[in-house]
């Protein structure tokens, strides 16, 4: 990135990346009312990070979001999902039985809503973290093909 020949790309990306991230969170938290959910949101957030690393270089991106952090987020997501299951177990229901989360009377939906949002958060973290970790693993390898060969 020494010359100026990527300047348009960089300016556009600077404007786009925050919008992509916000859209990812919109897709996540609006997933109960419209198409979307944790899987899609996780992928969109990962795409925002990958776009940043494609345009500004992989090294600054790795300083901002370290590979270790990405792996930790992935593990945390899976943990969060399973934790909801055990929460339901602790409250006397079956594994992942959300109605038991708050011991509601029949017809109450708070447990379902909280359970779904939390497990979707787990999915979001696991998918985004895994995808970024996978991308880092590939992009971090020292390539044998130079830019000029393309």
């Amino acid at each position, binding site marked *: 990135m020494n010359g100026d020949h990527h300047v348009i790309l960089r300016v556009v990306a600077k404007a786009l990346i925050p919008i992509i991230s916000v859209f990812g969170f919109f897709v996540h938290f609006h997933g109960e*009312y419209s198409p979307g959910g944790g899987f*899609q949101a996780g992928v969109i957030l990962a*795409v925002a990070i*990958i776009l940043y690393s494609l345009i500004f270089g992989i090294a600054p991106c790795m*300083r901002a979001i370290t590979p270790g952090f990405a792996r930790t987020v992935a593990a945390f997501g899976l943990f969060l999902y399973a934790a909801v299951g055990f929460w339901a177990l602790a409250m006397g229901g079956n594994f*992942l039985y959300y109605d038991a989360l708050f011991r509601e009377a029949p017809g109450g939906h708070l447990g379902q809503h909280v359970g779904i949002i939390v497990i979707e958060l787990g999915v979001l973290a696991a998918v985004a973290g895994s995808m970024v970790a996978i991308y880092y693993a*590939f992009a971090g390898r020292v390539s044998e093909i130079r830019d000029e060969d393309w």
Partner: protein
Amino acid sequence: MTGFEGANFAIELLNVTLLGILFIVAIAIARLRSLFAIVMLSGIYSLISATWFVALDAVDVAFTEAAVGAGISTALFLAAMVLTSRTAKAEKGAMKILPLLVVVATGAVLIYATIDLPGFGDAMSAANTGVGMEYIERSKTEIAIPNVVTSVLGSYRGFDTLGEVAVVFSAGLAVVLLLGFGERSLGATVRREDRAEPKTKEGEGE
């Protein structure tokens, strides 16, 4: 997609057009040798199939396919391509004919099997009368969220989804174990540099 005359015809037209484009792209992928072109075409294939998913009422699947197929997997293919090769060798001689025979035979068997399948859009088929429709009817009283796909994904089949998340996580772990921790990994280099001198200038890894 309900309510006005001609909607079915429009959808049929959309089906035929999109399928035609899918066929063209797939045959182009089979014939091309430049891996860059192949990867880009596979991204296009994903986008077009996502469009078709919308026509088939599967909006969530379309969303996922567009984000994953055209976004992540294209980026992964490009990243892997940089590390491997840029052109594929042309298939030669027997390697062209023999697979064709196998593929035609398999296709013929599968098409023979479709005779017993329910028709396209049949509301009374076995797939559409079972538990899937039950979910739609019960979701609003039991879960009370409008997107039935989310309620099935998160609640009715939450255990499945836990397994899927575990698979995604372990796949990420497998890739990191295969590629990430070695001395050739850039992550290790960046970490080492940061430790050596905390304030490094930008864009060093170029």
